[in-house]
């Protein structure tokens, strides 16, 4: 993975000193609340319901075992012994004291990490898929591109006070596992006869106004990536709305101008800087790409693994759900579920568990860990013959749950238990659903199903693109839950449709159960939930859910 050089190290060190000074000035009354706010956000520090929350960047979701151990140490020493992995592949610590923030980011800098631009109206942590570099269906490793964008966007002086936050995702495999279509800018990288080409998508986003991105530029040569991004950001910075924060994302600008006019503006801007000094060089690409070359992969016997699959049904179920095809046939990528059941909020991992995962990655993997945008963790390269041992260890640490891609593998935001923005709680609803669907055989029978929960319309839990989406809403001071169905992520992403009036928290599990029953009755062959919804419409689901007299909000 990418190793910091002299410049990267200097940047994070100086940033620690700078933010330490800003915190001190704030505490001494030399910076007002209003002046301090954007500064702390640009360093990933939020003020939540009960305490400060620090969001640490995990660039494109890649961690070394050493970094994961440090996150575990931070959880133990500065928080309540756990961290929360997010849909942007970052980690959040929920119980932070302002005084100790400099110490924490110093510790991060020690292991080449930071919290820069994980919040604020800036270019945020660049994301890609968790299997980058090892997936069997990959055209090219997207991480060098993501790292190059990370560097370009970090403290880029022109784009630190944008109209609103700006999220970029990169994908370069057959299947889009990076939610590219719901990003402000998404880049699909393809290998063509003419070399690597980029399809640039723009104007996606969830939140109050969910919109899927549209194609802005097709077949862009890779050398132009930064100049083209600069042109997009410049147009956005100049024309994006600033009068209403809910209409300030680039998706609203693209929608109001229309994609063609927006593309013309970008083109005009780009022509001025295209072929200028920000054009990427082969030398730079090489320098960065070399650092992502994986350790040499070797042939290894798989007979023990095959025998274990045949012998142990629980193990083979886990392999079936929790592994991903590796480019080398002796290996698999292991997905570690952070959603074992009702007692664990999705995405929460304890310090002890972090250390166990770090150990496993060193002993059986390549010393790397990835974070998925579904809030799970991945050991990208494990030899098949070690899988049984890995699974056994994971199981003992409550990390061996075989539910990846299933209904209980929910994306859930922290919700009203932590978040100052939330209208309703998310975690207890997730727990009730976990409880209701605790029968693994039933879950496996339902098959792949994305269930996403957000505690407010900011949509951190991506409810719009869940096959089933749950949105917490506030009605006259009480918490209700609106249900959408038919959403989907990926290259052919879809926004779900609201089925009707909202429900009380206690009724959510049985509503989901009814939706699932309708699906099971109507599905054809291996059809997935969102495709069934697409084919038969939402009416059969509505009729079933609202048939009995269930109390709903009007």
């Amino acid at each position, binding site marked *: 993975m990418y190793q910091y*050089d*002299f*410049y*990267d190290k*200097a*940047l994070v060190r*100086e*940033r620690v000193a*700078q933010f330490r000074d*800003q915190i001190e000035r704030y505490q001494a009354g*030399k*910076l007002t609340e209003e*002046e301090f706010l*954007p*500064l702390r956000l640009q360093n990933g520090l939020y003020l939540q319901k009960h305490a400060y929350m620090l969001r640490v960047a995990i660039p494109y979701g890649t961690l070394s075992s050493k970094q994961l151990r440090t996150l575990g140490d931070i959880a133990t020493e500065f928080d309540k012994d756990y961290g929360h992995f997010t849909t942007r592949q970052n980690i959040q610590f929920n119980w932070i004291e302002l005084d100790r923030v400099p110490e924490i980011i110093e510790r991060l800098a020690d292991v080449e990490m930071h919290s820069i631009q994980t919040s604020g*109206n800036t270019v945020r942590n660049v994301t890609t898929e968790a299997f980058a570099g090892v997936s069997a269906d990959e055209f090219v490793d997207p991480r060098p591109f993501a790292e190059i964008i990370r*560097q*370009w*966007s*970090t*403290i*880029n*002086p*022109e*784009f*630190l*006070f*944008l109209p609103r936050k700006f999220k970029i995702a990169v994908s370069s495999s057959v299947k889009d596992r990076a939610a590219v279509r719901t990003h402000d800018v998404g880049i699909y990288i393809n290998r063509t006869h003419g070399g690597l080409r980029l399809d640039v998508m723009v104007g996606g986003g969830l939140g109050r106004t969910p919109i899927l991105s549209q194609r802005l530029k097709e077949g862009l040569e890779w050398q132009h990536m*930064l100049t083209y991004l600069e042109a997009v950001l*410049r147009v956005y*910075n*100049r024309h994006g709305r*600033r009068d209403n924060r809910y209409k300030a994302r680039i998706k609203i600008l693209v929608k109001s101008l229309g994609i063609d006019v927006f593309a013309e503006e970008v083109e005009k801007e780009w022509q*001025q*800087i295209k072929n*200028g*000094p*920000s054009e*990427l*060089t082969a*030398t*730079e690409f090489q*320098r960065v790409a070399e650092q992502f070359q994986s350790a040499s992969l070797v042939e290894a016997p798989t007979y023990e693994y095959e025998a274990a699959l045949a012998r142990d049904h629980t193990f083979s179920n886990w392999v079936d759900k929790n592994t991903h095809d590796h480019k080398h046939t002796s290996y698999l990528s292991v997905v570690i579920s952070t959603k074992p059941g009702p007692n664990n909020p999705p995405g929460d991992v304890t310090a002890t568990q972090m250390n166990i995962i770090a150990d496993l990655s060193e002993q059986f993997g390549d010393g790397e860990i990835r974070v998925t945008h579904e809030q799970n963790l991945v050991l990208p390269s494990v030899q098949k013959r070690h899988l049984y041992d890995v699974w056994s260890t994971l199981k003992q640490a409550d990390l061996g749950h075989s539910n990846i891609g299933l209904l209980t593998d929910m994306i859930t935001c922290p919700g009203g238990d932590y978040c100052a923005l939330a209208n309703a709680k998310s975690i207890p609803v997730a727990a009730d659903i976990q409880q209701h669907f605790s029968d693994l055989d039933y879950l496996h029978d339902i098959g792949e199903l994305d269930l996403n929960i957000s505690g407010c319309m900011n949509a951190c839990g991506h409810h719009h693109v869940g096959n089933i989406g749950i949105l917490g809403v506030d009605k006259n001071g009480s918490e209700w839950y609106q249900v959408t169905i038919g959403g989907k992520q990926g290259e052919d992403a879809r926004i779900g449709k609201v089925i009707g009036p909202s429900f009380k928290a206690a009724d959510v599990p049985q509503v989901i159960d009814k939706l699932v029953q309708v699906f099971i009755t109507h599905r054809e062959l291996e059809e997935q939930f969102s495709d069934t919804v697409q084919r038969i419409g939402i009416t059969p689901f509505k009729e079933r859910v609202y048939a009995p007299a269930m109390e709903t909000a009007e």
Partner: protein
Amino acid sequence: MNNVISLVNSSQPEISEHDNWHLVDAIENSEAIWPKSMLVIPFKEWLESAEAYATAPKAFWLDNETDVHLVEPWLDKIELIALNFPKFTDGRAYTQAVELRTQLRWRGELRAFGDVLRDQLTHMHRCGFNSFAVREDKDILDAMKGLNGISTRYSGSAIEPEPLFRRRAVI
């Protein structure tokens, strides 16, 4: 103008509590003591009336919604352009500055005014501003520290067009 940090004459910042420029909302609001030539007038007024004055002002200011390309015909007639930060969180003037410097090749003085604060000075400088009228309630010596910035600059900028990957020494 008051509370000004300037990098116009030297790479070492110079401070003046009051300098000779005088920024006005409208020419008619300017006091008689200011020579017309030292007024920084709204660009709109410049367009309407600048030609009419014998000693035309040598500077104008732009609000952050104005397309900077409109000023192109006048660049050889003036000495200073001031860009407004109505709130420090409104970043449009950064892009205006970059465009003035890199696309219109403006070489004269480019001044930031309005909600100009210590912690944004480096960003402004990198976008091409070379003088800063710091908000008047702020201590200018303290504000000056904001120019120190961070030594690693990945992206190129108006004052340093090459990004780090073209400047990078092999270490």
